[in-house]
């Protein structure tokens, strides 16, 4: 009964979404106040309906209602309650419902927090979001209904994929989707502005906080996914250039360009067309990511059960959404003025350069991701594109991005003289070159490490120096100032972490029996014993590894190999000891004889790995600080005093 209620709510939501997508838009065009004012109530109603539907599915999971096909496929009576909730988005149908739910959350937030915006703008934005929602509702209802019943009713469900039974995976998809879906708001603002023919400064100001929030969620979501892969897959890797990882990285790169470009548009009224294009691209790439994951056109570890009809549907949806918005762009953006003049040496020129670099990097990732498919489509053979391509192409593009980051912060709006721009950076430049050379020389020379460390130091010193200078001066410092520096330092931490891990990680693959010891990088690992430990819905073999250094006990690690009887799938649970300077990482492999006396085991020492996660957290914190800046809570009618903000 409750399940049917959820289904009906979803159908009603489709009708409301259609109303929400059409009436306010037409109303805004015809200056019909009544139709425009339908936008907010429709958004709220749609949110309630989709939430009801989502709750109904969650209820079916909690109640172990295996008469629902989706529940039977993705849950099990022995699955812990937390994972029974997360299982709602553990498969294709439910994760689309999550997509819809989050879109509704974003839409209702726009409806509630847009009091200072003119009604016509609100109406257009909510309408565009309504149209997107219509598309996804149609998709769910026609090809991927999570409420489908099953008969005869099985006694037991098939269980959630053990890979997904991890706390990180409980929050990773919602965070990532919040980011993906969040770009739909920036997209809706851009389309609304194009439709209204008002690509102006206010448009940029309104969409900035929304875009930033979406970016924060996406950064956090990607970070979580990477952290999960690191702890859960047992290969010690944290980024694999997998098509689906790339699908999340592309909107992130594009979104990063967008938040910076929006800033220029707001402050200086320039790059309007470019900013709109970025807003359209960021969301289009999110949709493309959805297509890549759902249609099975690419090989990926994330591959959901693929279904050609679903692929066709998303492809058509993609064509309609992106095609129409790019056509609108081509039609309207031609008339947009280029805005304020730009001097060669100015903050906007540096930001534009970085923006272009980020877009090129996005295109490079897109090319690498789709290349196997394109080559196959042209009948030129089968191939796969791996890390060597991405490393070769991505790194040279990121080097200037990091370099320019500091120059951008240092430069003024409008125009700087070369003298006042570069002079203060001499010290930073020399210091960072020295740092790079010293670190690489001390730890074992490698040009890559020297370059990476020099760049990292360049960003750290280049960010800290002007920050300290500014803090010494009197006057209130806006939050956005801290926001920018925090995020940039986070980026530097990621760079330093990646450089040192890539440069100096140690790895040992061994055949080991209880009582044996191995040494790696000054640490001694002793396998004490392997015992069997029961879990709630699995049985684990747990190894006890004592780690010592110079005779001092460092820690004891307990890597596990879990077997989930419901799916007969073995899972590796790596044991990691983390501190700021290094991760000790041990993963238990397969038994090599019967009964098991010897095991295959992997040991890694990964220097500075935690800096990657800390860096992501710093970026997220930076984003949150930026959103909290009080100017976003002021009425838009109040003009910003010139020079009130640093970023």
């Amino acid at each position, binding site marked *: 009964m409750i399940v049917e209620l959820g289904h009906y709510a979803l159908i009603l939501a489709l009708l409301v979404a259609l109303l929400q997508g059409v009436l306010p838009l037409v109303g805004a065009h015809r200056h019909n106040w009544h139709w425009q004012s339908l936008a907010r109530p429709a958004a709220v109603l749609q949110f309630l309906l989709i939430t009801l539907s989502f709750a109904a599915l969650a209820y079916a999971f909690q109640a172990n209602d295996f008469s629902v096909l989706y529940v039977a496929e993705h849950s099990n009576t022995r699955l812990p309650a937390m994972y029974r909730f997360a299982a709602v988005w553990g498969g294709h149908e439910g994760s689309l419902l999550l997509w819809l739910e989050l879109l509704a959350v974003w839409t209702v937030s726009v409806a509630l927090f847009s009091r200072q915006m003119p009604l016509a703008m609100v109406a257009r934005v909510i309408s565009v979001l309504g149209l997107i929602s219509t598309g996804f509702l149609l998709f769910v209802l026609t090809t991927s209904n999570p409420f489908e019943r099953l008969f005869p009713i099985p006694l037991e469900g098939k269980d959630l994929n053990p890979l997904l039974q991890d706390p990180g995976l409980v929050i990773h998809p919602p965070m990532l989707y919040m980011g993906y879906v969040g770009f739909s708001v920036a997209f809706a603002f851009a389309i609304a502005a194009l439709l209204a023919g008002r690509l102006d400064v206010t448009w940029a100001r309104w969409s900035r906080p929304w875009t930033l929030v979406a970016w924060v969620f996406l950064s956090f979501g990607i970070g979580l996914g990477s952290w999960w892969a690191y702890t859960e897959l047992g290969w010690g890797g944290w980024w694999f250039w997998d098509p689906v990882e790339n699908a999340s990285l592309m909107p992130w790169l594009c979104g990063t360009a967008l938040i910076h470009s929006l800033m220029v548009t707001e402050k200086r009224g320039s790059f309007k067309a470019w900013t709109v294009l970025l807003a359209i691209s960021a969301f289009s790439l999110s949709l493309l990511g959805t297509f890549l994951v759902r249609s099975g056109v690419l090989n990926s570890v994330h591959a959901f059960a693929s279904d050609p009809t679903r692929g066709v549907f998303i492809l058509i949806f993609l064509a309609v959404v992106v*095609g129409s918005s790019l056509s609108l762009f081509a039609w309207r953006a031609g008339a947009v003025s280029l805005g304020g003049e730009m001097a060669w040496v100015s903050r906007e020129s540096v930001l534009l350069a970085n923006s272009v670099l980020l877009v090129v990097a996005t295109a490079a990732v897109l090319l690498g991701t789709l290349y196997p*498919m394109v080559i196959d489509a042209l009948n030129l053979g089968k191939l796969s594109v791996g890390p060597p391509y991405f490393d070769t192409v991505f790194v040279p593009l990121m080097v200037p991005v990091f370099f320019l980051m500091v120059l951008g912060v240092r430069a003024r709006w409008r125009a700087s003289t070369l003298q006042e721009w570069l002079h203060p950076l001499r010290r930073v430049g020399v210091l960072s070159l020295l740092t790079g050379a010293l670190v690489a020389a001390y730890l074992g020379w490698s040009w890559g490490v020297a370059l990476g460390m020099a760049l990292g130091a360049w960003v750290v010193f280049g960010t800290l120096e002007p920050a300290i200078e500014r803090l010494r001066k009197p006057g209130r410092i806006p939050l956005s100032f801290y926001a920018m520096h925090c995020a940039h330092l986070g980026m530097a931490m990621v760079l330093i972490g990646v450089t040192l891990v890539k440069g100096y990680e140690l790895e040992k693959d061994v055949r080991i029996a209880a009582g044996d010891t191995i040494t790696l990088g000054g640490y001694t690992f002793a396998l004490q014993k392997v015992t069997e430990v029961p879990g709630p819905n699995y049985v684990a073999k747990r190894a006890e590894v004592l780690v010592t250094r110079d005779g001092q006990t460092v820690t004891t690690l307990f890597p596990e190999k879990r077997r989930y009887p419901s799916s007969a799938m073995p899972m590796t649970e790596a044991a990691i000891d983390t501190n700021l300077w290094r991760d000790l990482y041990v993963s238990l492999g397969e038994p090599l004889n019967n009964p098991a006396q010897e095991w295959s085991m992997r040991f890694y020492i990964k220097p500075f790995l935690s800096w990657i996660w800390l860096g992501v957290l710093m970026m997220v914190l930076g984003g949150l600080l930026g959103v909290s800046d009080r100017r976003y809570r002021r009425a838009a009618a109040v003009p910003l005093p010139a020079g009130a903000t640093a970023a």
Partner: protein
Amino acid sequence: MRKIILLPLILFVLLLGFLAIGLRRDPHEIPSPLVNRVAPPFSLSTLQPEQALFSPEAMRGKVWMLNVWATWCAACQEEHPVLVSFAQEGLVPLVGLSYKEVQAADAPEGKPFTPEAKLALARQRSLAWLRAKGDPYSLVAMDLDGRVGIDYGVYGVPETYVIDKQGVIRYKQIGAVTPAVLAEKIRPLIQELNRS
């Protein structure tokens, strides 16, 4: 009018075209470099201890199929009934290749297998399996250590090869043979090969 603003749209349409074509392809389908090459030679014991060693040479002049399987392989369980009913038609001989039937971990406590013991155990298990589920094979060659599997580029069980009268591999099926694969790919190919 600045024409450059049409560029994103044009690029997107191009991308859409590729996506549409890509949708009809299966990225998991990997062509084997062995297709249209002579089937690698080998010589192996078979399931019956009294039988002579089997070598693909013996099948010269016939169109035949080689099916790689093992009793521990889950997908083989699903495939098996399909093969049994296919074999009943008597269209072509189906030779089994029992792949790594016995694993090192199966050894009794602490003692590694002798080759003879390994072969005996593999035969015993395979025969029991075939007795229970039906035997589609005209004979089964025992690839105990997986060496022949390496020559044939086996990377997952089950796999099936169609080999022509000249001993050339004409088709490779990775994963289970399904009625659809039989109808769409294997049967038409066999008919064509039998005609030539």
